[in-house]
């Protein structure tokens, strides 16, 4: 399970697990680590240790070029699933990367900011993930290589309630996995 689904996310994860608060505050938006990978374990230390091991094993399986590695997040305006022209170009670059690597799949994780009702926000996050899925489809990525999941407001990239935090939380994360 882990071997299949965890990839290049993990070096970042290990960083996040070890980092202090100040490191997280300094990180620019594009480097915000996707959420930790370990599933429900009462023992935090064990969970982190196993995630770290899996990461080392899998970090080699998908290597993104530097210009994409730090650009795996598409941001959205309030109550919108519209993709900016700049991000359309970024999506095209990801589509080109996928075109050359048939064993690579992409999970699109949709998120909203903290405002509003939680389950309704799952719907809004799904809309964003689907918008990115359609954009990748238009760039020729096969349907079967893409999956979506909406976390709504449940996995903020950053805490806080001001517009700066909200803007960083309204996003779709592109998470590569190896088949």
């Amino acid at each position, binding site marked *: 399970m882990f071997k299949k*689904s965890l990839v290049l996310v993990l070096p970042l994860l290990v960083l*996040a*697990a070890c980092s202090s*608060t100040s490191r*997280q505050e300094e990180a620019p938006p594009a480097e*915000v*680590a*996707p*959420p*930790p*990978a*370990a*599933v*429900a*374990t*009462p023992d*935090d230390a064990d*969970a982190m240790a196993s995630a770290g091991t899996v990461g080392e094993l899998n970090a080699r399986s998908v290597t993104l070029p530097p210009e994409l590695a730090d650009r795996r997040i598409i941001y959205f305006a309030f109550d919108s699933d519209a993709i900016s022209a700049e991000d359309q170009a970024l999506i095209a670059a990801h589509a080109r990367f996928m075109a050359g690597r048939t064993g690579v799949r992409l*999970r699109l994780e949709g998120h909203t900011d*903290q*405002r*509003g*009702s*939680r*389950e*309704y926000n*799952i*719907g*809004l996050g*799904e*809309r964003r*993930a*689907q918008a990115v*899925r359609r954009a990748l489809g238009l760039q020729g990525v096969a349907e079967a290589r893409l*999956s*979506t*999941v*909406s*976390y*709504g407001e*449940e*996995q*903020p*990239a*950053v*805490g*806080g*309630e001001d517009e700066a935090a909200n803007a960083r939380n309204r996003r779709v994360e592109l998470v590569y996995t190896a088949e």
Partner: protein
Amino acid sequence: MIERIARALRYGLVTAALALVSTSARAQLQVDITSGVTAPVPIVISAFTDDAQPSSAVVGQDLSRSGRFVLQERTRADYMVAGRALPAAEGRITIEFELVNLLTGQRLLAEQVTAAPSAWRNAAHRIADRIYQRILGVRSAFATRIAYVAVDGVAPALRYRLVVADADGENPRTILDSRLPIMSPAWSPDGESIAYVSFETRSAAIYVQTVRTAARRRVSGRAGVNGAPAWSPDGKRLALTLSSAAGNLDVHVLELESGTLTRVTEHPAIDTEPVWASDGTALFFTSDRAGGPQIYRAAPVAAAAVQRVSFSGSYNARARPSPDGRQLAHVTREGGAYRIAVLDLQSGAVRVLSKGTQDESPGFSPDGGTLIYAGRERGQDVLATVSTDGLIAQRLQATSGDVREPAWGPFRP
């Protein structure tokens, strides 16, 4: 008048003392009364004779936190409670108690409650429920439980726990622990199980977990969204939200025993947050088919006809009916603030009952007298309650971390 002011002052002192007591009891949630009625009923509760546990203190805490009573010394009280503990069969403890009207001398209750020593708090809550009902003529829900989601850590490295606790926040017990989100806990009508959404596999799935044994079953794990589970009043069906391959959310009904699935809504809008009308004949749900989210009603059948229910304001979501079926608690947006409101289904009148800016996830207590919801205060997610008359408000705050998505369990047999 002077008497009322004096009572209010004494009431304030009692409240302050209670907050300390609950902190020292290592409760995960600390309860504070944030507003109360001006003239609560003065009552004196004597320590129960031979009681190894502070049962009488728990009775007093329940009554005073309700906001309808104030603990008082005997000369100033209208009612008195006294009791004693004695051993019962199989190692259990019986508490005999009496309620006396001090103004008339009339004995209003002379009853007993028997429980295992480990269930002494529940026994005390039952005594408080009896006293409350005898004096005020309406039911209370002290001897019930709540479930909520607790979140610790700094984003994006968060830890999520599903917690079940007594209605006063005591005896918190984690029934699920995950590094990925847990959402939307919903009690089965018999109080034995909780349905919830967990992302533990990095996709959404709905589980039904037996609270006592922690045994659980995945009841919906389709591709895409599996969300917002809601039990039918008979406990045999779950309304839930599923998405199509294109990501369109619709409300469905799942027969738990057979696994038969019925798609109720068929609309390209977001249709979600279903909940059953109290009599089981209809579903209320949130849809943005008219632009912003509003509340609608449909029969729980395939391709049901849909009626709009909410009309005031541009954002109304997450409906929960009152036990008598007459009202719908929901989230409404006022200006930029999200607040808890109650819609009277007959008259269409809407009352806003909360004052926060990010209030959400409302639900009624099983007696219908109180709403519980989640809010945000000084950067922390807290739980709050407000009486349906708007007079009495409480805050239940975690000693650390966020607490959210409260679900008030049913009366226990």
